[in-house]
């Protein structure tokens, strides 16, 4: 499992002024971030650009030392036992970088496998398995300088899995992938979690996060603003449902407002906090007045709305 306790991190950025002048500004990247990820769980960290997602991942991966706080990977401290931590981690850091351009995809995978201490044959066998898992196919035998962003993303995921680590960190793993490849990768991540792998994921694709994650945390300006299952997050934010009811009559006499919908019939649209009660009320009124009902839709609030609400309110 993964445990992050109250981590803080600041860094300096350089701002250019004019031709030669520049000044430094201190930025609070993380401001007391805490969360836990259980074994077999998919936990997503979402937030706007510069919110602190990658910094968090890098601290967990021992690639950055926090100013304050601690994180544990399978019980090992990222500060005191970095080697043990690394043995327990697989990571996708950049979807478009991290490989030697003049080596083929498979040669890069074998290289990393050997750096994890595998023999060449063992690394090659594992690399071939992974190339199939991520659907890289024959592209694995092309040099990386010919890769598209999508191919690179697939290769990064394969690299992440080469050491069969129990905990996996994915920093925007499906960026640049076509919809079918992205779906395959999502299925793969799900399968990995079902097999007991712990997954920490960051993504800007809210639909993906909502469908993939057991739990999610929204991070903004270095702080976790809200966390829980996608349903809990939306519930906590009291996000409203949209109810749409189509009436099969050209000019119904109703107390409810309506607009003409795509099929040419009037559609009643209501934003609701209690969708079941409101829907029954609308249906009752339509039936009482003797009209026939066409389509009924209840549109749940999306995680994207939750995200927008949290970030924009801040």
């Amino acid at each position, binding site marked *: 499992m993964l445990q992050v306790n109250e981590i803080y991190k600041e860094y300096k950025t350089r701002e250019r002024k004019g031709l030669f002048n520049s000044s430094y500004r201190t930025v609070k990247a993380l401001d007391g971030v805490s969360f836990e990820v259980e074994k077999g769980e998919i936990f997503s960290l979402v937030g706007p650009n510069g919110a602190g997602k990658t910094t968090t991942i890098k601290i967990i*991966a021992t690639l950055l030392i926090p100013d304050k706080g601690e994180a544990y990977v399978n019980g090992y401290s990222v500060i005191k036992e970095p080697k043990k931590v690394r043995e327990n981690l697989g990571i996708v*850091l950049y979807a478009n970088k991290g490989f030697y351009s*003049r*080596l083929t995809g498979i040669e890069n995978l074998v290289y990393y496998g050997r750096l994890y201490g595998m023999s*060449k044959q063992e690394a090659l066998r594992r690399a071939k398995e992974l190339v199939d898992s991520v659907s890289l196919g024959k592209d694995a035998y092309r040099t990386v300088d010919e890769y598209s962003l999508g191919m690179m993303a697939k290769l990064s995921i394969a690299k992440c899995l080469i050491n069969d680590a129990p905990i996996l960190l994915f920093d925007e793993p499906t960026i640049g992938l076509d919809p079918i490849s992205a779906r395959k990768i999502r299925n793969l991540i799900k399968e990995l979690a079902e097999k007991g792998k712990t997954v920490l994921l960051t993504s800007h694709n809210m639909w993906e996060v909502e469908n993939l994650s057991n739990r999610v945390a929204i991070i903004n300006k270095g702080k976790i603003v809200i966390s829980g299952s996608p349903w809990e997050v939306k519930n906590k934010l009291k996000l409203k449902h949209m109810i749409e009811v189509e009436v099969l009559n050209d000019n119904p006499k109703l107390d409810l407002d309506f607009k003409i919908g795509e099929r040419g019939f009037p559609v009643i649209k209501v934003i609701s906090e209690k969708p079941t009660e409101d829907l029954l009320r609308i249906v009752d009124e339509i039936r009482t007045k003797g009209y026939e009902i066409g389509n009924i839709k209840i549109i749940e609030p999306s995680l994207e709305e939750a995200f927008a609400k949290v970030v924009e309110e801040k």
Partner: protein
Amino acid sequence: MAGNFFIKGIRKVFAEFERGVTIYVRYKVWLISDILATPFWVLLLLYGILLYAVNYVNNSSVITSLTWGIFLFVFVSNFLGIASSLVLSIQQGILENVIMTNSSIVSHLVGRVAISLIDTAVIGSLVLLLNTLLFSANIFIADPLFFVIYLFLAILFFLFFAGTYSFLIINVRSPWVANQALQFIIPFFSGAIPIQLFSKGFASVIVYSPFYYVIGPIIAAATGYYPIDRVLFLLLDILAVLIMGIISYRVQKIILRNALKKGKFSLF
């Protein structure tokens, strides 16, 4: 446990070495270009120096000494390239992934050592051959056994040196600038141009350079002119390698932590 650790270590070094060789041979056009350009660079360096001593153009022993000097210039330049390879590794997002495998940075540099070794062998041999054909240099190695030993020690020394130096330039966006300065300064202050060619006063300055005890012996074994006893030279050479190894270990430990604190291995 220790055996397993050792086997893993060996596997990592082999992986890096093989990676270096594979990449080197994939840059075929560069290799051909370097081979074709070498005669021109050799001429440029030789004539550039001989402008000050035009009467030495037909002096075989001076040309031989300068030839070995250029050979070692190629060697030093190539091994300084190891240091900038670390910056390149960061820029390509590779180093962080390498760190995640628990590999040491020195073992990662072995990949570039492979490139430096092949390049020195190819270009260095070409330099020796050209100067023999064009200027009648005598490239017969006077003391081959010691030449090989000294060369091996120099490779080790420069691996440690590059390891240390690469950490120091980790934040430099254009490491070639520092390399360029060092590739001139190190050979000059290391006896790459044999000190017997210099006046006594000038030669006495060079013996204070630590690089002299790494490069100087190679020149001595090649030309057969030992300014000090060859065994003593060997001992001093080993001492220099050990000291550089210790410095490299200490510097890396200190700077690695600092780099991880400031995120210097990160692309962003």
